[in-house]
Every structure is written in structure tokens, then in C-alpha cells.
């Protein structure tokens, strides 16, 4: 969605009111990344929504305070998102230094090419360019996969979304916005076949989001998510909170 989309632009109002379904929401969010005007409008309209939100206060029962403060004692906080300042990153600096070393080496190698020592340096520069191109490509593909997953995400009972993208004999699974679970509970993914259900993965109850690549046997019909005791279960012990069909 790199081109301006009047459709997405008109949805800023519905977006800040949370009046979009999961698919529309993902489309608008993808659009906002490329449309500073829309992003600014969202900030402004969100301020209006906040005023609507603040206008209906009600004091909660005092027992709620106790439960909240008790629960946070057991919840690990997420680390801050540390911005990467270009040029201020150790790894980048190291890579640039290596590039320089390699360039010097390549020049030196060219000089002594007649003696047959130049190959190593020259190939390294070439390989490095290839690597950079590959990295850029992987990062593009990540964005494509994330957008595809967002657009096929469906809400799960109790919160969070489930997206399953089958391809060939594998499936990419993306569960996100998972509500944190008590310490003795985890999320578990299952592959469901006509002959029964098989565990596919266990996801930490506080992970918030997880992605998995599953190898699908021929008879897998759907991917399911349940909440299980810590460590996971051999078979589901609770009803599925989300189900995505892989093939009919």
C-alpha cells in the first residue's frame, strides 16, 4: 500500500473509534506507515476519542485495585524499544570498518593479482554486496508476510488474533496481541486431523506474540489454539479459543 489510498484515508475516523474489523484495521495501519498526513490526522482524531473516553468516569470497586497490584507482581515487563540511530550502532560501525578493511585488502590484492593472491579480497566485496541485497530482500519479505498475516487474522475468544497462511505442505502461524496469562498457564497450538489432534507448539503465556512455521501432514484440516497448564498438554484440556482452517 505504498500509493496514496483515498479509501484508507477515509477510514481514519472509524479507525480511532475502533470501528474497524481486524482486516480493515490492518489495512489502515499499513497505509499509515506510508502516509504522514493520515498519521497526523489519526493523532488529532485520537485526541478527540480520548476526550470521549475520559467523559464517563466511574470508580471501580477497591477489590480491583488489590487484584491488579497483586497480578503485576507476577508479570514481567517488556523491555523498552531502543531506537537504532544510524551510525551509532556498534554492529554497523564494525561492519563499516570491515568493509573498509576489505576495500583496502581488495585494492592491495588487485595490485598483487599477478601473483595470484587477489581472489580472496575481491570475492569478499562481491559476497558482501550480495549479502546486503539479500538482507534487503528478506526485510521486504518480512513486511509482506506480516501484512498477509494481519489481513487474514481472526479474533480469538478472550482476546488476541490468529492468522494461518498455508503454503505447500507448511503453514505460517502468527498469533498476536495475546493477553498475558497467569504464570502457570501457556498458549498451545494444535494441528487438527480427522484422526485426532497433535501438539504443534507451546507459546509462553506472557509472549504477547508468536510466529511459527509448521510442517503439515497431509490430513491436517485446521490449526487450533488453547490455554493449557505450564509446559503444555499431550491433548487439549480446554476448549479452543481460536481455530483456522488449513484446508477443507
Amino acid at each position: 500500500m505504498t500509493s496514496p489510498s483515498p479509501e484508507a484515508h477515509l477510514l481514519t475516523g472509524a479507525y480511532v473509534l475502533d470501528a474497524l474489523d481486524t482486516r480493515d484495521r490492518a489495512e489502515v495501519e499499513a497505509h499509515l506507515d506510508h502516509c504522514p498526513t493520515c498519521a497526523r490526522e489519526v493523532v488529532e482524531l485520537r485526541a478527540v476519542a480520548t476526550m470521549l473516553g475520559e467523559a464517563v468516569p466511574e470508580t471501580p470497586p477497591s477489590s480491583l485495585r488489590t487484584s491488579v497490584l497483586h497480578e503485576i507482581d507476577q508479570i514481567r515487563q517488556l523491555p523498552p524499544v531502543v531506537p537504532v540511530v544510524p551510525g551509532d550502532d556498534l554492529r554497523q560501525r564494525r561492519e563499516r570498518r570491515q568493509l573498509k578493511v576489505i576495500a583496502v585488502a581488495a585494492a592491495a590484492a588487485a595490485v598483487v593479482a599477478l601473483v595470484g593472491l587477489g581472489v580472496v579480497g575481491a570475492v569478499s566485496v562481491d559476497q558482501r554486496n550480495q549479502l546486503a541485497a539479500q538482507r534487503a530482500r528478506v526485510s521486504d519479505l518480512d513486511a509482506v508476510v506480516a501484512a498477509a498475516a494481519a489481513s487474514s487474522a481472526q479474533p480469538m475468544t478472550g482476546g488476541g488474533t490468529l492468522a494461518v497462511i498455508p503454503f505447500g505442505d507448511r503453514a505460517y502461524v502468527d498469533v498476536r496481541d495475546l493477553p498475558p496469562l497467569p504464570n502457570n498457564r501457556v498458549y498451545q497450538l494444535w494441528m487438527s486431523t480427522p484422526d485426532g489432534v497433535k501438539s504443534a507448539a507451546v507459546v509462553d503465556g506472557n509472549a504477547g506474540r508468536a510466529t511459527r512455521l509448521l510442517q503439515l501432514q497431509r490430513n491436517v484440516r485446521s490449526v487450533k489454539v488453547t490455554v493449557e497448564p505450564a509446559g503444555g498438554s499431550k491433548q487439549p484440556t480446554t476448549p479452543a479459543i481460536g481455530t483456522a482452517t488449513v484446508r477443507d
Partner: protein
Amino acid sequence: MPRPADDDDGRALYAVAAPDYGASTTSDGLAAPEQLLQRAGRGDNAAFAAFYDQLSPKVFGLVKRVVRDPAQAEEVTQEVFVEIWRLAGRFDPARGSAAGWACALAHRRAVDRVRSAQAATDRERRVGAVWATPEGDAGYDEVTEQVELRLEYERLRRCLGGLTDLQRESIMLAYYNGHTYREVAHLLSTPVPTVKTRMRDGLIRLRDCLGVGA
């Protein structure tokens, strides 16, 4: 591989264009919620408790307005505050007020809760199709229901009064009742594109009337 987990947590939820945080306390001498949240982000439980005391009426009131059921409202409010605790280290006061952030998180959680409950009800209804009640004007009453705003929100009430009926009802049904714009269109017997547009131009008119965010 896909982007790392949690990478979009909370970032989309910043609410208000950066206000001035030059003063570290509010007019009544309390520590500003932004400051409390930053301290909470460094693991300070007492700061988080003070933050809870300041903002829980707003969060609980909003959540209860959307989900209605008091027990569920408590559950969702608890989820919201636990989420705020988890994400506190990522709060950036330069990008918006703490109250705006908390309200946006709370509203989204509340809406998710009513929608997944609705999805479960719909599934049950499909399974027990013989018991199904005819679809149609269910929910029409809520259109006429007024949100009662207290005195200190007189300005907001006045600005809401300056909207067209369709703008106001579209915004209220979506925000306070948790409906999607398609559902709102159905409830108001109005074409979907019209409702989309009215939500946006209604909010723009409110923004200009309230003088926020610009």
C-alpha cells in the same frame, strides 16, 4: 524470519499530540501520570499504584460503558492495567499523554471483548439455528439512548450538540457501544460509505470545536 515478537505493542495507541510536560505535577499537587508511568516502567510498583489511583476511574468507566456487564468490565480493566504495566517501559511522553494511551488501550480491549463475545454468540446461534430469532431491528433502542455526561464535560456536550444527528449517532454507536462502522450503517439504515465519512467529518468537527490535537 518475521519481525520480532511484541514489536508493534502499544505503539499504535498513542493518543494526544504532545502536550507540555514542563510541570512534573498536576495542579492538585499529584505527580503527573506521565511521570508515574515512566517510573512504573523502571519497575516501581508504588508509582504504578499511584498511576492506577489516578486513572482507574477513567479506564473502568470507559470499559464498563462499552462492555456493560460490571463483572466483565472489572476483568477487562484488570487486563488493561496489567498490559499498561507490561508496556510501561515503552511509553514515550513525547508522543502523547498517559491518559490518552491508557484510554486507547482500554477502548480497544473493551471492543475486542464485546466482539469476541458476539462471535461466540453467533456461533452458538448457527449451531442452534432452530432457536434463532429473526435478525433485524435488534439494538435500535440504543440509538436513542443518551450518554450522560457530567457537568465538567459541558464543553464536550456542547460540541457534540454541534454535530449533525448522523455524525453524532455514528460516533456514539461506534465508540460507546463498540459497533463496527458496518454495524452502525445497518443500525442507522444508512449506506456504509456515508457512515464512514460521517465518522471522520464528525470527529474533525469535534476536533475543531474542542481545539485539540491541532
